[in-house]
C-alpha cells in the first residue's frame, strides 16, 4: 500500500485537518506516504509543513490555473500523480472542495470511495474504514474492491502530529487540465468574516431553523436563549432567508461550536449543520417533522410544534428561576 494525501491550504497554511489525515497515513507506516499540494504560484513553500507530518514525497502542482479552488483541475492532478507515482490509496479530509475532488476522482479512476469515515485500520492485509451511519447510531465497517481505494474522512478525525522539521522530496507536477475541468471560473471571492456573537465560547446555544416558520418567530429562539443565559445561532437556510446575519450561522460553512447545551428549534439537521455542532455535550431538538435527520443525533428528541412548546418551556424555566 502506498498512500497519497490531498492537502488543502489557504496559501500560507495547510489545513490542520488535512495534516491530521497525513499523520494517520504515516502512522499506519506500511509504505511510502505522498502528499499533494495544488495551488497558485508559491504553493511549493508549504511543502515543509507536509514533510513535518510524515510525507516522504510532496507533489506540487503550482500554476495560476490552479489558484482558484476549483475541484475538477485537482481531479486531473491527482489522477496523474496516482498513476505516475503508483499510489493505490488516496485520502482526503472532508470539505466542500475535497468532497467534490474525491467523487470526481472516484468516477475518473473507477475507484471505490468510502466517505464520512471517522477512523481507518489495517486488518488482515486489508484496509477497513469506519463510518458512523444513521445519524451516528450505527458503526459501519467498510472496505474497497477496486485497485485504487479512496477515503474521505470526517473533518477533524485525526490530530496532526509534527515529527519535526524535515526536508521533503519535492516533485513538480505539470498537469494540463482537461477542457471541461476549466470551464467553470470563479469571478469573485468574498472571504468569511469572524464578527458577530461569540458562539464558539457560549455554554448554551439556541439555534433557530426554517421550521420556526418566519423571521417574526425568530424571537422565540432569542427569548429561550436569554432565559437560559445563552446565545442564539442560526442555520444556513435561515441566514439566506435574511432572518439574521451570517455571523450567526452554525455549520460546515459557518461556525463550529461545542456548548454544554445545544437546543435546536425547527432545525432539520442537514450534514452541513451537524458538522458545526456535533461536539455539543447535550443536544435537544424540537421539530414537528418526525423524520428530521436531527432526531438521529440528539439526546432529547421532541416531536412537536415549537410555537406551543417553547413559550410553555420559557414560562416553566421562568417559574423555576423565580422570575
Amino acid at each position, binding site marked *: 500500500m502506498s498512500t497519497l494525501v490531498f492537502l488543502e491550504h489557504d496559501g500560507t497554511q495547510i489545513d490542520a485537518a488535512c495534516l491530521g489525515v497525513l499523520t494517520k497515513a504515516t502512522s499506519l507506516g506500511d509504505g511510502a506516504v505522498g502528499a499533494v499540494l495544488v495551488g497558485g504560484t508559491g504553493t511549493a513553500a508549504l511543502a515543509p509543513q507536509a514533510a513535518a507530518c510524515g510525507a516522504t514525497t510532496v507533489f506540487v502542482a503550482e500554476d495560476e490555473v490552479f489558484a482558484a479552488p476549483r475541484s475538477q483541475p485537482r481531479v486531473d492532478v491527482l489522477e496523474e500523480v496516482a498513476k505516475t507515482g503508483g499510489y493505490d490509496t488516496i485520502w482526503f479530509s472532508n470539505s466542500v472542495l475535497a468532497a467534490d475532488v474525491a467523487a470526481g476522482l472516484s*468516477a475518473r479512476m473507477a475507484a471505490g*470511495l468510502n466517505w464520512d469515515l471517522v477512523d481507518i485500520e489495517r486488518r488482515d492485509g486489508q484496509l477497513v474504514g469506519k463510518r458512523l451511519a*444513521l445519524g451516528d447510531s450505527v458503526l459501519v465497517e467498510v472496505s474497497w474492491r477496486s485497485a485504487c481505494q479512496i477515503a474521505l474522512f470526517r473533518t477533524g478525525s485525526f490530530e496532526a502530529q509534527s515529527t519535526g522539521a524535515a526536508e521533503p522530496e519535492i516533485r513538480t507536477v505539470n498537469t494540463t487540465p482537461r477542457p471541461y475541468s476549466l470551464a467553470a471560473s470563479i469571478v469573485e471571492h468574498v472571504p468569511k468574516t469572524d464578527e458577530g456573537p461569540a458562539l464558539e465560547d457560549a455554554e448554551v446555544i439556541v439555534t433557530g431553523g426554517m421550521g420556526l416558520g418566519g423571521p417574526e418567530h425568530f424571537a422565540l429562539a432569542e427569548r429561550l436563549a436569554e432565559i437560559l443565559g445563552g446565545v442564539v445561532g442560526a442555520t*444556513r437556510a435561515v441566514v439566506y432567508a435574511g432572518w439574521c446575519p451570517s455571523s450567526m450561522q452554525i455549520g460546515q460553512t459557518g461556525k463550529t461550536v461545542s456548548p454544554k447545551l445545544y437546543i435546536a428549534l425547527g432545525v432539520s439537521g442537514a450534514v452541513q449543520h451537524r458538522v458545526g455542532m456535533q461536539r455539543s455535550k447535550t443536544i435537544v431538538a424540537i421539530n414537528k417533522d*418526525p*423524520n428530521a435527520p436531527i432526531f438521529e443525533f440528539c439526546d432529547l428528541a421532541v*416531536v412537536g410544534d415549537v410555537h406551543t412548546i417553547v413559550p410553555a418551556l420559557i414560562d416553566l424555566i421562568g417559574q423555576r428561576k423565580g422570575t
Partner: protein
Amino acid sequence: MDKVAVCVKHVPDGRMRIDPDSKRMDRSGPGELNAFDLNALEEALRIKDAAGATEVIAVSMGPPQADDSLRTALAMGADRAVLVSDPDAAGSDMLATSRVLAGVLDRERPQLTIFGQQASDGTGAVLWSAVAELLQLPVVSQVTELTVLEGALRVKRQTERGDDVIEMPLPAVVAVTDAINEPRYVSLRGQMAAKRKPLETLTLGELGIDPSSVGVTGSMTTVLNLATPPSRGSSIRIDDEGHAAEEILSFLAQRELL
C-alpha cells in the same frame, strides 16, 4: 434552455434501519421524496417559471415504489419523470449509482442538471461530482444562488472559506443547498395533474448499461460489519401530547443544565 433535469431520491419514511443480512439500508417499507431534493426541484421550476426552460424532468434510480416520490415531483410541477428500476441495480454504491444516473442524463441531454445537497438517508454528499465527471461537464456544489445567463450560469456557492461567485457554460451540473429557496407546497391541483403526466420506468438494458458495472457487482466499496458505536448515550424521544415543555424541563434539570 429546453430541458432541466433534477436528480431525486426515494428515501425510507420514518425510522431508518440497516438490514443486518444485506448490510444495506432497508428500503422495503414506505418512503418519501428526499426533503433536500425539494430545493433542487423548486430551483428547476423557478427557472421554468421565468421562461428560462421549457421542460423539467425528474430522474431517479430506486425500487419500483420510488415512483411515489417521482409522482410527488410531478405534483410539484415537473413535466415528466424517469425512474431506473432494475433488480441488478440494487445495492449500488455511490460510483455505481453515478453510472446509472449518467446513463439517463446522457440519453436526455439536459442543459442543466440539479441535485439537492444530500440524501436524508445517508450522509453522502458527493454524487453530483461523479456524475459530472462521467458526463465530462463542469460541476459546482453548495450553490446558494443561481442565475441563468445566455448559454451559461452564474452561481454563488458557500465554502469553509467564504462565498465564491462562479460562472460556467451550459450544459452543466450543480448541487443546490437548502438555503437557495423555499420549496412550494404541492397543491391538490398539482396532485391531480401529476396522475396524467408521463412517468417512464426503465431497465438497465433499455439504457444500454452493462449490469455488471452497477449494483453489488459493479460497486467498488463494500460493507464488512455493522456495530454499535461508542454511543453519546441513548437518545430519548418524546411525541408531544401537551406535556413536552414539562418533560424538557425535567430533562434539563436532571442534567443540571438550568
